[in-house]
């Protein structure tokens, strides 16, 4: 047995990336996830509209974070702000009456807002009429958890499948020795990358449709928005997810390294994308990580389109970031892969009958 132990240690010692991951990663993850794992909502983006908006806004305190006050606007504006994701709570302050609208897709924020509001403005017969507030929860009035989770889970499942499977694509060719053959074939780097991604993109798209349909049938999750907007967001998200897998594959020497790196990319998306813990509850440093994760933006799009019928005009932000991420990730994958595929073309574009000459 000692022979095996010694052999394993020797092999492990030479795989420095694995050793680094085994030692450093748990500590990093614990710290990052520790700061992320919080259901306590400290900040609730709030808009206040209506004639009494300024007075009401000045009386609101933490966790309500008043992001806009518009005395000239009415309930339609309040609803559109919630639908477009600009606020979680919208207060319509009419004379003698308060209407508080809440975005039901933000479960923890809504629960916190309800608690705080109940303390601020007790309801019931004992309450003074001018201190009574009518609360309406929109989009998910019963705060059904599955309604909120399914659109995000669809993305998470695709992150798992997409990133893990494609992360093995190039490295498998490398280990089988077929990568050298590919390098000699008349392929360009982007053609190989596109060829590797395209089949998985189609399968993952079919997967996504299946997941959403199952979510609608089994969990009765509504689909209220525009299918084309959802499809655009999903396509961009899948490109980033699959591109990340290929990028991982191009920087890994073996399948073990690829799987480890893929987990490093996938795991933060489970905890930091806003799927479970609200992004606004996370420490500021950790929030920055969540802004780099594609799932964060897909969740915004899928929840917005499916539950709130958010129009595309309000989703250009996340759609744009996903497009940018796709360009960056795929660009990096192609650049990195080009080194594997054509080391000689970095210096000289070879043409038949004009020999590649290197100064001696």
């Amino acid at each position, binding site marked *: 047995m000692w022979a095996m132990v010694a052999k394993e240690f020797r092999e492990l010692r030479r795989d420095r990336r694995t050793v680094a991951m085994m030692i450093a990663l748990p500590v990093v993850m614990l710290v990052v996830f520790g700061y992320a794992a919080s259901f306590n909502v400290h900040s609730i983006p709030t808009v206040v509209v209506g004639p009494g908006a300024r007075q009401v806004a000045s009386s609101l305190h933490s966790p309500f974070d008043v992001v806009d006050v518009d005395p000239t606007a009415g309930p339609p504006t309040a609803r559109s702000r919630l639908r477009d994701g600009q606020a979680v709570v919208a207060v319509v302050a009419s004379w003698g009456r308060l209407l508080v609208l809440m975005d039901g897709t933000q479960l923890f924020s809504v629960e916190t807002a309800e608690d705080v509001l109940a303390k601020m403005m007790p309801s019931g017969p004992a309450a003074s009429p001018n201190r009574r507030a009518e609360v309406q929860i929109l989009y998910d009035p019963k705060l059904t958890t599955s309604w909120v989770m399914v659109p995000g889970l669809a993305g998470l499942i695709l992150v798992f499948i997409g990133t893990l499977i494609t992360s093995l694509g190039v490295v498998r060719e490398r280990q089988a020795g077929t990568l050298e053959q590919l390098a000699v*074939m008349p392929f360009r780097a982007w053609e190989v990358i596109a060829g590797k991604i395209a089949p998985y993109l189609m399968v993952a798209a079919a997967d996504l449709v299946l997941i959403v349909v199952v979510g609608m049938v089994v969990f009765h999750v509504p689909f209220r928005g525009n299918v084309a907007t959802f499809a655009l967001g999903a396509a961009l998200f899948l490109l980033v997810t699959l591109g990340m897998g290929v990028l991982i594959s191009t920087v890994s020497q073996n399948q073990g390294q690829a799987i480890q790196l893929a987990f490093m990319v996938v795991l933060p998306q489970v905890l930091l994308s806003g799927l479970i813990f609200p992004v606004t509850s996370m420490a500021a440093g950790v929030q920055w990580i969540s802004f780099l994760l594609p799932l964060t933006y897909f969740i915004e799009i899928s929840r917005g389109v499916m539950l709130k019928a958010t129009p595309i005009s309000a989703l250009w932000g996340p759609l744009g970031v996903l497009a940018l991420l796709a360009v960056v990730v795929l660009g990096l994958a192609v650049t990195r892969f080009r080194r594997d595929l054509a080391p000689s073309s970095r210096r000289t574009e*070879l043409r038949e009958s004009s020999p*590649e000459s290197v100064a001696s």
Partner: protein
Amino acid sequence: MRWGLDAVHVRFGQRVALAGVTVPVDPARVTVVVGGDGAGKSTCLKVLVGLVQPEAGVVRRPSKGRIGFVPATAGIYVDLTVEENLEFSADAYRLSAAERRERGGEILERTGLAEARKRLGGQLSGGMQRKLAVGIALLHSPALLVLDEPTTGVDPVSRAELWRLISRAAAEGTAVAVATTYVNEAARATSVVLLEAGEALASGSPDAILRNVPGALGAARGASRPTPLSWRRGIEWRVWAPTGVLPGGVETVDPDFEDAVVVAALAGESRR
């Protein structure tokens, strides 16, 4: 020289992998690069096909679409059938429907894999896998065929079949470069480059290499090594005398290719 390497230097970090190596590869000829493990054979071929960038020297090669390459590893997709492997290569080189039908059938017949066309690459024997790899590399009728140890670990019958494929490709006008550790295979070549520790010890036709073996070569029997420059060949010792004067009791013999390779290695060592 139409294709090949001319005074190519390659360095991996501090290690010199090739030191001014010249490997001519001409159409309708088979050039064999022979040498032991770590001699620089694979590096030579990788430079030739563009996988390794030389530090200095000249590389002549056709455009990518006119090169056929078989790496030292299997060089086939084990999860694809024989037919699908050929199909992938045909797609990659954009062969027309007529070309792929004609060449595909021809390659299956030449490699003896027609019966196994529906079998997965991973289910083929080692020899069959190598034949398939060479077949794939030949499918698009390349101007330059580069094979890295195509016969290593292959049984003698399959080796003979592989060499038949290689010779036929050369006979049809393809320039072929083959790396091998098997000295006897070098005798099949039109020209040979003997590599040792990244240096070309000798090059030329097999006949020229045999003619140019320096000094004198002899054979002796006995339990102990007759001179420091001696090596075992079966029950005999081969004795090499760089000065041309063999010790007493040692009978002069004509060198064969294996002797020529060993002498070149010993001469290279003494130069270093």
